[in-house]
């Protein structure tokens, strides 16, 4: 594998982790979020600041990063308790813009210059770069998938499915909407925080514009393309949308156009995603996907 291919695969793995988090919120709990990049950014900035200013190592910072992102995720998930569907979508877009602006305009976060000099990741004295960093990302992706899968088999996961399907009936069946919507936001944003930390230490320089609204749309596209509410859907979506522009080089300049076209085609022909109910790949790969939808 060339260095370039490895870099692309690292980004795909990171985006798969973050999309899995979005899938917990949107796919499992049914709460629309179009501001997921904000939490990706919060994770990246938290790790960047803790390692450059507080002098922590990547590993010491990581639990704090996840904790910080999930705490903010819980607070910013609160609009979901009062708003439904399109109103929630608009509010989460707003959250994305606010978080991006805070990073851009508050001097503490480095302003327009962003944060540079983010240290590399070391494990037992070995610097993790290139293919080693990729392996680390894949290990974290495996852990993320394991947590997602376990969540779909837990009472909390079942409670989220019930809320997604019918909130009034769910609460009459003993499910507290407040508790389990926030649970989904905490788990989903924690995964985004993990992805953000990996991103910061791969790039070693971050700035606010890396975490804008278009990235949130991209993540939503990945989830929808792969299969919303399925276990492997976000991974497949990240792989396809991450690899397509690399395979067809001329498409790079038309990335957003490509995403929009893919999204529209999916809505028209594969509304449940490639791995969802009736999806193209679901039929080819029996027993794959569909978790939490059946």
């Amino acid at each position, binding site marked *: 594998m060339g260095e370039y291919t490895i870099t692309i695969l690292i980004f795909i793995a990171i985006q798969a982790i973050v999309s899995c988090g979005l899938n917990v919120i949107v796919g499992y709990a049914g709460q629309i979020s179009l501001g997921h990049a904000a939490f990706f950014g919060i994770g990246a900035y938290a790790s960047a600041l803790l390692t450059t200013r507080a002098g922590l190592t990547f590993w010491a910072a990581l639990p704090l990063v996840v904790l910080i992102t999930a705490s903010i995720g819980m607070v910013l998930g609160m609009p979901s308790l009062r708003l439904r569907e399109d109103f929630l979508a608009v509010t989460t877009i707003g959250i994305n813009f606010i978080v991006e602006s805070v990073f851009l305009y508050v001097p503490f976060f480095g302003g327009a210059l962003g944060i540079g000099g983010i240290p590399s990741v070391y494990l037992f004295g070995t610097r993790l770069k290139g293919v080693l960093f990729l392996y680390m990302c894949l290990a974290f992706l495996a852990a993320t998938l394991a947590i997602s899968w376990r969540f779909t088999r837990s009472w909390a996961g079942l409670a989220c*499915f019930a809320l997604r399907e*019918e909130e009034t009936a769910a609460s009459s*069946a003993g499910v507290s909407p407040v508790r389990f919507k926030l649970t989904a936001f905490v788990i989903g944003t924690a995964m985004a925080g993990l992805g953000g930390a990996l991103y910061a230490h791969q790039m070693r320089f971050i700035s606010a514009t890396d975490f804008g609204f278009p990235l949130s749309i991209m993540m939503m596209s990945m989830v929808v393309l792969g299969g919303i509410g399925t276990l492997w859907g976000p991974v497949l979506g990240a792989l396809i949308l991450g690899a397509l522009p690399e395979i067809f080089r001329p498409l790079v300049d038309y990335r957003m156009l490509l995403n929009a076209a893919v999204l529209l085609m999916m809505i028209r022909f594969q509304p449940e995603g490639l791995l969802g109910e009736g999806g193209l790949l679901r039929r080819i790969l029996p027993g794959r996907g569909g978790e939490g939808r059946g």
Partner: protein
Amino acid sequence: MDDALLRLESVSKHFGGLKAVDSVSFTMKRGEILGLLGPNGAGKTTCFNLVSGVYTPTSGRIFFEGRSTGGLPPHRMSALGVGRTFQVVKPFSSLSVLANVTVALGLRRYGGLFSSFARFDTPEVRSEAMRLLEEVGIADLAHVKSGKLPLGNQRRLELARALALRPRLLLLDETFSGLRHEETEMLSKLVREVRDGGISVLLIEHNMKVAMGLSDRLVVLDHGRLLAEGSPRTVRADPRVIEAYLGKGDASDAS
């Protein structure tokens, strides 16, 4: 604690200028099947939503087992022992029939941090859910998506889901509407069995024959107000009830 399972004291619910429920009081005894009747728009479903916690009363008080519960949210009411079905069925459509019932079996586990992250797909939970599905007669449909069931089976599923809460009060909102004769018979029998098992039943029913046949006592609402209360026999003979349903025996009303 008194003998009353459920007591409404001058309960009102206003939506803007509309008095959907207007100062209604009645008491329900333990072990009773109480029928809630009234023409369309009389406030029956609003009453259910008040008792089950979907709405907070504008004024008045609701007592369940001697405890004032007006304003508690639905998931707290279900934990206290109130199960319900819906007039317009609300299954968790993309989940299987089995999973629908399992959701309600989780009632005692949703409270704790650790218990809520325990696995739900255990053999014990599955067999408990299957037992409930057998009780309502749809065990053979356990793995079908609930959204694909015909209405009659969705109503049975809602009943199983409410029973999974092990309630002490069961609210049935037009559970018999849209059902075939045999289904109605089967469910009536089931409701009696449920009551004999110690669960009190408050039901809304448009089918007079079913309502009269099942209920020990009836409460009749009209325009949000309590119109009559008593045994099926006395309520049926009450001229005010006849008037509310059929109108006055006056030629000018014939239009």
